[in-house]
Structures are given as C-alpha cells and as structure tokens.
C-alpha cells in the first residue's frame, strides 16, 4: 500500500466520525481567530471612558471591561497569546525532547537508565510549582510561561521518542539494515523519525490544549503574561473583580478557553483512534 493510499484511507476513516470533525472545525476556528481576528477587531488597548463595564451591545458585541476596552478585540488578541503559548511550548519540547529520546534509545546502556529515571521523576511533578519557581527567577512573562510549559511536556516527548526507537530497532527490516552496517543517522532519519510522527502528533493534540489552559492559569494568577497584554487569563483576573457587576466579562474568555481546548481534545481523540490502533477502543 502506498503512502498516499494510506493517508487517503486514514482521512476517510477520520472524516466519518462526527466528534473529531467537530474538533477540527473548532481548532481551525481558533487558529483563524488568533491569526485573522486581531486584523478585523479594533485596538485592544483603546479605552472608551463613556462605556466602562458596558454589557454586550452593537458597538461592543462582548461588552467592555473596567477601562472601557472592547472585550471582543481583547478576546481576539488573547487568542494570539494562547496560540503562541501552545505552539511555542510544544515546539520547544519537541526540539529538546526528540534528540534526548533518540540518544537515550540508541545508547541504552549508558544514558537510558539515567534519562528514564529523570523522566519518571519529572513526569508527574507539579508543573505549577515549577512555573512558580521559574517566575520567581526570571520574572513573570510569556517567555517564562513558554519555558515552563515546554519543560512540563518534555518527559512525554522523550518517552514517546525513546519508545519508538526501541520498537523500530526490533523490526526485522531495520535489524537487517543495522546488520548491513547502516549508520545511526540513516536509521534515525529513514526509520525512526517517520515512525515517531504519529504518536508525536497525537501528543501535540494533548499538549497544546494543556498549554492553553496552563498559560491562562498562570496569567490569571499573575505569574504569566502581564497586563496590559490581553490574555484570556488576565481578562479573567479582571472579571473576578467585577463578577456581580459585569458577569459577561467572566463568560467569554472562559468559554473561549474551553472551546479551544475541547477542539484539540476532540481532534486528539479522533487522531488517536485513526493513527494508533493499539490504543483505540
């Protein structure tokens, strides 16, 4: 079966399921909002003193905050921050984690036990405490958020890559290639990395929504993105102060986080079913 045929068949299996398709739509909508939204909506910092804490209206479809800033514009810009946090932290984790996983898998005798022990230790470590420590050292910022979130994903990426290395090396044709004297580089690029693609894509669909929630949580606590940058978490901090006067301020950002996260989760569940039949149930 050719690769193209395999892809077409996977896509057909994927398309038949309503939930992953709904997830895909949500994810695309979220990405569009982040990329194109800020161009359409107005300035997120523009203050309208005549309309502070105004309920949703024609001029401000989502209402305004305590400084009279348009909530819709801030939502659109906040999507950009969320997307950045999600994608950058995942890329960071992959950029560091894949090489470590490869090395651990290839040099089993030396590095593997040490790396895996560290991975086990960090796998369940309270990410927020790590983020707190980082914020204490480098100060609260988007950079700190991305670093903390990227680091939190690292163990999973290392584990997946290493697992694929071990699995691929067991395959007959790879064992034959090794016996023929194929170099490690050849094995890695020809066999290992292509096999890592599917589980790592599935992992990304878990990591990105976790990072979106992580960013908004840290920003909400004041440990992440700092005002006046519009982040959904920062918006909710404001909303908490005006909960009884302007409840809509608490609804929109939270709903956006939930929908974006839900989209990735649905997409991830669907991809897992299609790409990884072992775990499909």
């Amino acid at each position, binding site marked *: 079966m050719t690769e193209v045929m395999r892809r077409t068949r996977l896509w057909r299996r994927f398309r038949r399921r309503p939930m992953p398709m709904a997830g895909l739509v949500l994810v695309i909508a979220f990405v569009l909002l982040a990329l194109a939204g800020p161009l359409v909506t107005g300035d997120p910092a523009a203050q309208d003193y005549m309309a502070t804490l105004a309920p949703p209206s024609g001029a401000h479809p989502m209402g305004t905050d305590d400084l009279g800033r348009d909530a819709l514009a801030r939502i659109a810009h906040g999507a950009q921050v969320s997307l950045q946090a999600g994608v950058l932290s995942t890329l960071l984790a992959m950029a560091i984690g894949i090489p470590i996983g490869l090395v651990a898998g290839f040099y089993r005798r030396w590095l593997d036990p040490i790396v895996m*022990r560290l991975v086990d*230790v960090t*796998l*369940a*470590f*309270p*990410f*927020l*405490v790590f983020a*707190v*420590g980082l*914020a*204490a*050292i*480098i*100060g*609260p910022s988007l950079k700190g958020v991305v670093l903390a979130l990227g680091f939190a994903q690292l163990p999973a990426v290392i584990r997946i890559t290493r697992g694929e290395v071990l699995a691929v090396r067991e395959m007959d044709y790879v064992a034959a290639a090794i016996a023929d004297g194929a170099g490690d580089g050849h094995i890695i690029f020809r066999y290992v990395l292509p096999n890592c693609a599917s589980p790592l894509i599935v992992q990304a669909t878990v990591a990105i*929504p976790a990072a979106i*929630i992580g960013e*908004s*949580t840290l920003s*909400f*606590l*004041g*440990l992440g993105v700092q005002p006046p940058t519009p982040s959904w*978490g920062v918006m*909710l901090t404001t*909303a*908490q102060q005006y*909960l*009884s006067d302007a*409840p809509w301020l*608490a609804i929109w*950002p*939270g709903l956006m*986080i*939930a*929908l974006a*996260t*839900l989209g990735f*989760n*649905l997409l991830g*569940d669907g991809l897992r079913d299609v790409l990884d039949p072992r775990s499909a*149930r």
Partner: protein
Amino acid sequence: MLWFILRRCGSAVIVLFLSSVLIFLGIRALPGDPATVMAGQEASPAAIEAIRHEFGLDKPLPAQYVDYVVQTVTGNFGRSTQDQLPVIDILAERIPVTLELSALAMLVAIIVGVGAGIVAAVRRGRFADYVATGFGLAGLSVPHFWLGLLGILLFAVTWQVLPASGYVPFTEDPGQNLQRMILPALVLGTGFAAILMRQTRSAMLGALSADYVRTARSKGLPEVKVVGAHALRNSLTTVVTVLGLQLGALISGAVVTEQIFVIPGFGKLTVDAVLTRNYPVIQAVVLVTVVGYVVVNLLVDIAYAFLNPRIRLSGGGHD
C-alpha cells in the same frame, strides 16, 4: 514485596537528593545577591555582610549545601520577609487547609470519576456512555479557575446559597468549614473526575473484553459480580496509577482554587510568596511540594504492589 518497597524507597531518596540540589542551586540562581534580597532594600552594607556571614553565604558552595540540608532537616526555613514569622510556623498553619481541600476534591473525583467510568464502560455506546464521555471531555477542557468563577457566579452571586469565598477552620466550626469548602472541592474535583472517568472507562473496556471476563461469564456469574469483581479488580491498578500521576496536577489545581476562593492554604501561600518575592517562603514551599510529591508517589507504588499479585509475590518492578 519487601525488596520492592526497599527499592522504591531507595529511588525516592535519590530523587529527594537531586531535588534538594536543584532547589539549592535554584536559590543561588535568583536574580541579585541572596544576602541583599534577604536583608531587604534599605539594608546597610554592614547588615548585608552580617547576613552573609550569619547564613554562611561566604563559605564555598558544597559547604553551603550541607548547611542548607542541616537547616532544612531541622525545620529551619528562616523567616518570612513579609511578616517576619518563622516559615515553619506558616507552613504548619497552611498545609492542613490544603490537605483538607485536596482530600475532599479527591473524594469527589473518585466517587464521580470511577463511578461514571464504570457505568460508561458497561453501557458502552448507549445514552449513559455518551453523557459520561461528554462530561469527561467537558471536564477536561474547562480550566479550574473558570469553573470556580462560574461556581461563584451561580451559587454565590445569582442564587446566593453558598458563600463566595473565605475560610473557617474545621476545629472552629465544622458546619461553616464544610459550607465554604464544598464549592472549592467540587471545582477542584471536577477536572480530576473527568480524567479518572476517561481512564477508568478505557481500563474497564479493556478488562471487559478480556478473556478472564468471558470465563467469568461462562461460569454463570451475575453481571454485578462479573463487572464489580472480575473486571474492576483488574482496572484498579490503572486507576491507582492515574491517581498517582495526577498528584502533581492536584497540587497545581489547589494553588489556583485557593486563589479564587481566597482560602488561606498552601497554594495561596505559594502564589503570594512569588508575587511578593518572599524568597524564604518560596524555597520552603518548593521543597515541601517535592517531599510531599515523592512520599505520596511512594505510597502509590506500594498500593499498586498490593493490588497486583505479580509484583506483590515476586518483588519485580513495574515493567
């Protein structure tokens, strides 16, 4: 069994050692000279020098590390820069609050999550499964702190049936205490209930299609026994593992939940300490988290061994 526990304890000690070194180095990596930071901004050079000497900061690093370990083990975490209270006293006051919150949240999560997971697996593809799976996805996608805000909005602002925030010690007034803890515990527990539900469901689906469940059916056992004894018993190891893996997330969740509901627990202490750059407290908080995390993980490993006769009887490892 004993061998297994000993091995786990051994690796726990190694983790603690590594973590303490990391934290120690982390403190040294803090921006600015620690003596200056601890002395406060208005301190004179002489006072800074005095602190430097008092804390042994003029010694070489390994010696400083030994000092640090000795102090930590004897419970001497220094004084909070905010109110000059001993950090150990602050911890003693805050930790029980968070333990209560976490325990209540876990209770919610286990009852709702494991229960819904079993029902979803047994009624796979039916209405109850869709409801439970939908709840699982929603619970996974909604951030804790937003759920908390919504909870306050509904129960405290709109319906006014529960207080929005605050804390009353259990020893002072148990009724008031529970009334104020119920919303935070529900909020914190929901996310974990979702995760537990998903894991329980998939473990139960695996168990229900296992050969030994078919054997149990072929014996003519009632379905309650097939599901409740044969399938569930084998899924419990997964559930316990998931519980262990979620401990870190539970601590993180408690931090956020306490912040929203203004509960003076360990989590609120953590955030406040970072926001006020209260380094002695930050250092203690991180260390306590690591120790707590390692100890609970050890307990989870031991519980896992008890549930799995393969490990209990042979003393082998996880894999």
